[in-house]
């Protein structure tokens, strides 16, 4: 009997693993794009959607703060922020999820800090000198900054932090080798025990030399969160970060708040840093409490939390408005949804076919069906609040089935006897790889199938796990798929350049490559604007992928907490120290 049982057990376990692997949902906690550079655009300007005539982004103020639940009102010196649980990686070196970022933003500081419009201001730095050739950065640290254990911050701590980031055993997601610091490679490979390109001039001055510069350099170098060597450096030896990792649960920085207790999966309790160099934070205690999608609204309602991110939908917005005591921020998400083609396949190589597939798809209907007024159909891969955004000479590709048919005819795809288009004996069939359990795909597929059928194209869909699709993309074994990209504040990326690290679709356009390279080397934002405008116009004609939508995110804040400065680029922790609770 036992033998049989053992066998059954093995089978059962095996099955469990397989089944649970299949059932995984694909809500990825993508790291908030490490803040790179950027400029202007007022994000709080409400944008009207003509169709509904309703506010679909911006701030909706609370209507009646007196409706506040007793529980929240009685909490006089504590703010409770609801969020998905962080992984407990409270170290700017190793953090990966947005929620660990939030904790670290509250505990650590860097030379530069992001502003609401996506540009940067000096934070720890009093002054930054950049040499004329853009290869030498001198940071002057503000005097008198201390860590929360009372020890003074020194310029040498910057060098120390860089050493940790460049260590051979470093397995976090920052990529300091790509910053091109002189001597970085030698340190990484263990050939040198110092980074020759970072010179500590005195306690408050550090100088960084680069071998080559890019438009991203000032931000990459300036947003390194500075760790105290006196604390993190105790057991560190070059090539072994394990002693540093042990401090992941006990962070020590110079920031607005310090972590006083962490209960995994439950809460992180933060206490104000009275000696914070920008002034003592107004709220004494801040608690980051774990919430989930299914009950985060109920917790706001009962007063258990003061603030949370709620999924944007018409129902949710109405419900939050009805509660009356919440300020609702609806902000454009830093990302966009798209449908990718495999550019290695002959049928997708003709731009006319790609244009026809865009004209022939009713994107408006799909996007409104999922997000209502809270998402926009897009035509370039850029956030509408970015400085690089443009709608000058951008074709909108409004749904036009006749135009799509004409384009396909021009491209040589003619309707055959069975109603399907064909060219050189090949029928126009598209295998669509759909992500399992993705609401967008569920709304997209029926409309797409119907639209393309009218064009004479057959869609065959197969549903797969997110990682399985990623694998197919890497292997180039696909026709079309739906996915979403995150957007960095800076328009520079590798998604559409030839052989780019993220270019899974195999897209290649010499003009885009060239403009992207020029844009990366140009330091003047006004000139960059023109470069990217031209690039987006080219993409708009060439259709590397079918751009679908940019959706929004919603943060609801109890009206008793005032003073947050939130934007798509500036996460809430950056303004935490200036928030006050109204009694």
């Amino acid at each position, binding site marked *: 009997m*036992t033998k049989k*049982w*053992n066998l059954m*057990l*093995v089978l059962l*376990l*095996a099955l469990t*693993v397989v089944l*649970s*692997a299949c059932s*995984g949902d694909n809500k*990825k906690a*993508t*790291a908030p794009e*490490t803040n790179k550079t950027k400029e202007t655009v007022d994000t709080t300007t409400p944008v009207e959607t003509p169709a509904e005539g309703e506010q679909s982004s911006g701030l909706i103020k609370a209507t009646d703060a007196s409706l506040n639940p007793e529980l929240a009102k009685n909490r006089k010196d504590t703010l*409770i922020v609801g969020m998905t649980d962080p*992984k*407990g*990686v409270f*170290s700017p070196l190793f953090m*990966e*999820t947005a929620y660990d970022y939030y904790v670290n933003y509250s505990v650590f500081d860097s030379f530069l800090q992001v502003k609401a419009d996506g540009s940067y201001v000096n934070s720890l730095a009093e002054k930054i000198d950049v040499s004329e050739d853009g290869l030498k950065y001198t940071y002057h640290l503000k005097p008198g900054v201390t860590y929360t254990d009372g020890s003074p911050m020194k310029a040498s701590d910057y060098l120390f932090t860089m050493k940790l980031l460049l260590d051979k*055993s470093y*397995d976090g*997601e920052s*990529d300091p*080798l*790509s910053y091109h610091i002189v001597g970085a490679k030698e340190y990484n490979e263990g050939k040198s025990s110092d980074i020759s390109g970072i010179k500590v001039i005195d306690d408050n001055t550090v100088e960084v030399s680069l071998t080559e510069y890019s438009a991203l350099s000032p931000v990459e170098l300036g947003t390194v969160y500075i760790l105290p060597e006196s604390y993190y450096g105790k057991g560190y030896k070059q090539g072994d970060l394990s002693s540093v*990792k042990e401090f*992941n649960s006990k962070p020590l920085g110079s920031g607005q708040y310090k972590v006083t207790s962490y*209960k*995994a*999966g*439950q*809460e992180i*309790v933060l206490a104000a840093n009275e000696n914070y160099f920008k002034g003592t934070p107004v709220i004494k205690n801040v*608690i980051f*409490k*774990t*919430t*989930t999608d*299914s*009950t985060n609204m*109920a*917790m706001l309602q*009962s007063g*258990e939390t003061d603030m949370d991110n709620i999924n944007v939908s018409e129902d949710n917005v109405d419900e939050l408005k009805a509660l009356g005591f919440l300020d609702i921020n609806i902000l454009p998400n830093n990302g966009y949804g798209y449908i990718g083609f495999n550019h290695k396949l002959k049928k997708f190589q003709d731009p006319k076919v790609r244009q026809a597939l865009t004209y022939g798809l009713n994107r408006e209907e799909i996007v409104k069906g999922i997000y209502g007024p809270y998402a926009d159909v897009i035509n370039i891969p850029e956030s509408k609040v970015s400085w690089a955004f443009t709608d000058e000479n951008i074709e909108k590709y409004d749904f036009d089935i006749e135009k799509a048919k004409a384009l396909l005819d021009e491209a040589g795809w003619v309707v055959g006897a069975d109603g399907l288009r064909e060219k050189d004996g090949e029928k126009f069939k598209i295998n669509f790889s759909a992500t399992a359990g993705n609401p967008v795909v569920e709304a997209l597929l029926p409309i797409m199938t119907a639209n393309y059928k009218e064009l004479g194209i057959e869609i065959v869909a197969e549903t797969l*796990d997110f*990682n*399985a699709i*990623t*694998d197919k993309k*890497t292997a180039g074994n696909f026709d079309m798929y739906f996915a979403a*990209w995150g*957007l*960095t504040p800076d328009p520079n*990326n590798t*998604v559409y350049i030839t052989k780019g*690290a*993220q270019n899974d679709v195999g897209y290649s356009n010499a003009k885009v490559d060239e403009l992207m390279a020029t844009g990366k080397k140009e330091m003047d934002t006004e000139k960059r604007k023109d470069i990217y405008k031209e690039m987006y116009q080219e993409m708009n004609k060439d259709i590397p992928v079918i751009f679908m939508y940019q959706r929004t995110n919603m943060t609801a804040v109890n009206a008793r907490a005032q003073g947050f400065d939130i934007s798509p680029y500036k996460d809430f922790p950056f303004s935490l120290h200036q928030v006050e609770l109204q009694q």
Partner: protein
Amino acid sequence: MKQYIIRRLLQMIPTLIGISIIIFAISAMVPGDYITARANPNMSIEKQEQLRSIYGLDKPDYQRYFIWAGNMVKGNFGDSMQHKQPVTTVINTYVWNSFIIGIFALFFSWFIAMITGIFSAKFQYSFFDKIVTLLVFICMSLPSFFIGLLLIKFFALDMKLFPVGGMITSGLNARGWEYFIDVLKHSFLPIMVLTMLSTGSLTRYFRTSMLEVIRQDYIRTARAKGLKERTVIFKHAFRNAMIPAITLLGFELPGLFGGAMILEQIFVWPGVGHIYLNSINMRDYPFMLGFTIFLAMLTLLGNLLADVLYGIADPRIRLK
């Protein structure tokens, strides 16, 4: 007996090796790895390769298996990729929270199931039996997220008797007795739902087992001796009906530590269930494999425990 236990423990070794090969093979066949699952739009190809080589993901599968299995034998489960902490630390952090609701739910569901099972059997086809059967089937068939949300609506939002979720009241800083009461309040709803879900099948099980025993000759003999009906049912019948249940009890062991994925999500209970689910989605191999092996070991131990208890409870069964 000692010899039997030692032999069974030794037999576990090849079983565990088999299990480890199968789960490793499956994890290796599943598409993607931690780097693809992260889908970081800024990561360069060089950085991806660098990370893969640090994590050892660039090695062939069989090599990875031997490295992993070798470390496991030494008791080194490796570091969770998501948590950047040893797997054992992560398990230890979360598993006890799952255990709290698991053990209470186990206790209540067995207690309720025993009582209702006995009476349902004693008064078979009575009105009581029918009502119990109906209730039991309702509890069994409703999905946990539905009951969970429904109870939250009634008890937490409308009646304000219990908190919506979590394990402690944030900002209360309670200690000692106060802390205990606070956790109790928070755990009430999840324990209730978990109890509702598992009581159903247990009740049916006990009822059947009891019905079988009640028809035995020795029960008739006991009644013929003129024993009180209470003694007959609770002493003679019940004890015998409980023997097969020991096997079930053994199987509950991994369930106590395994966590309830959906339930924990709804009640924001900081258990190990959703950590495990996340590790599978994110292809966090060290945690996913380590925790699966941990559950496999518990299952094997539970199995052994059941067999040993069986021998103690029923002298007719000899363990050799």
